[in-house]
């Protein structure tokens, strides 16, 4: 497919949608529906100011710390639990229960324990996003190919190199799937934790705009959250394709057969 056609397919529908939006709001006086031009102006005015440093940066930092801790803890604990069979069987139901708790429900409890601090917000993010990573790691470790595992044993590959070259490698597709879920849950919790009680951050600011009926500013905040989501998903896909290159290549070969 030529470059032009590719570009046409990528931009065609979005352009059409924006055009429809522009035309239909041309003469509308609806309070809730923003118009494209003022929204762009408001967006630049609102977010390309010191607000970027006071609201966006702290939010994203908390998100990054929370998710990073959740991923490291999740993989570490997951490797332990996945390798020790009796331990896995013992605590898997308890873990499944914790996973099933809708994470925003934990916000009131963590607020009680930590008060309204950064620690609270970060632990909200950790407490929600650790489960998909943890349980997927356990599942990935469990489904290590038994032939490969036996081969490793035959060659006396044990200890750290067994983990590094066999267990982590074969669990990585599952772990990446878990991380993808953790990212989207983490983003949700970043917003929720700030909506509850905070004096800064994206979630807080957007609710503030909504309470003040600053509709255009509120929409521009929604756009910021959307953009963060999209950037995260692009970064993730890039990383995943690099980390799992061998996996996709292998699958392609299997399909070709």
């Amino acid at each position, binding site marked *: 497919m030529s470059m032009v056609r590719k570009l046409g397919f990528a931009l065609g529908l979005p352009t059409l949608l924006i055009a429809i939006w522009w035309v239909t709001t041309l003469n509308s006086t609806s309070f809730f529906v923003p118009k494209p031009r003022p929204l762009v102006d408001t967006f630049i005015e609102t977010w390309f100011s010191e607000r970027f440093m006071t609201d966006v940066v702290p939010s994203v930092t908390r998100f990054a710390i929370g998710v990073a801790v959740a991923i490291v803890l999740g993989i570490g604990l997951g490797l332990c639990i996945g390798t020790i069979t*009796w331990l896995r069987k013992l605590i898997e139901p308890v873990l499944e229960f914790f996973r099933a708790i809708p994470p925003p429900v934990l916000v009131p409890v963590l607020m009680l324990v930590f008060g309204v601090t950064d620690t609270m917000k970060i632990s909200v993010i950790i407490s929600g996003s650790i489960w998909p990573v943890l349980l997927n790691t356990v599942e990935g470790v469990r489904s290590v190919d038994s032939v490969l595992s036996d081969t490793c044993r035959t060659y006396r590959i044990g200890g750290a190199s067994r983990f590094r070259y066999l267990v982590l490698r074969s669990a990585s597709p599952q772990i990446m799937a878990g991380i993808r879920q953790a990212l989207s849950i983490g983003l949700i919790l970043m917003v929720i934790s700030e909506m509850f009680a905070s004096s800064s951050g994206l979630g807080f600011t957007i609710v503030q705009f909504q309470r003040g009926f600053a509709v255009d500013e509120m929409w521009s905040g929604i756009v910021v959250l959307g953009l963060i989501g999209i950037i995260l998903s692009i970064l993730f896909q890039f990383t995943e394709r690099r980390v799992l290159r061998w996996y996709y290549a292998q699958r392609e070969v299997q399909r070709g057969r």
Partner: protein
Amino acid sequence: MTATALTPAARKGVFDGPLSGVLGILGFLATWEVVCRTGLIDDRYIPPASTVLVTAIEYFGNPVFWAALGRTLSGWALGLLIAAGAAITVGILIGSSDFLRKATHSTIEFLRPIPSVALIPLAVLVFGTSLNSTLLLVIYASFWQILIQVLYGVGDVDPVADDTARSYRLGLVARVRYLVWPTALPYVMTGLRLGAAVALILAITAELVIGGGGLGELISLAKSGGAIDKLYALILITGLVGVVVNLGMRAIERKTLHWHISVRGETAV
């Protein structure tokens, strides 16, 4: 030495079967109880397991609780149903045409990662605390999960089977009915399972943040009233609701896909 401990034969022991899971849960509750009773953790922060369990059981005799649960679950079910209907229709439509698939790809990839909680202020502004607020969030969150899976599923149709159906002059409706739908069904069920979990999170979040009845509002009431044991009991209950939803969706999946190789393989072993 360690190698023998990992062989399959060594795995069979006391901790086999569902018994170990029950043991794990009991162990967890016992640890929780002991940690609180001995004062390792202040019971202003975490009340002992027994107190929380008793409070949770008391809730089951409370009509207010059942009304709240009913409201949460009806928002969840209605939202999931609408999202599933829309996602399956749109997915089959887009998935069956190469042109539509390419033309919508960028838009779908753009809209999908937008966190649904970003819509909370909008929901409050437009719908207030009515059920529609919950529905908006639930539908937005679960629609994309299901749509993506349907698109994968429709794309997975075997080209030979498709050509065969065409040579036998199966019409569009018949092709969707006998070829596309059965191929996509496992993916649809996966999408529904993922969507159901996300929908529950959003349903309770909406009630928690926006209000308007349901388990979420009970939780925020317990919190502002300082009723710690009620707070923990409700969290326990939402966890149980989550587990029941997950198990229920898995059961439905197994039932609808009883003919499919993935399920048949499971039972044959």
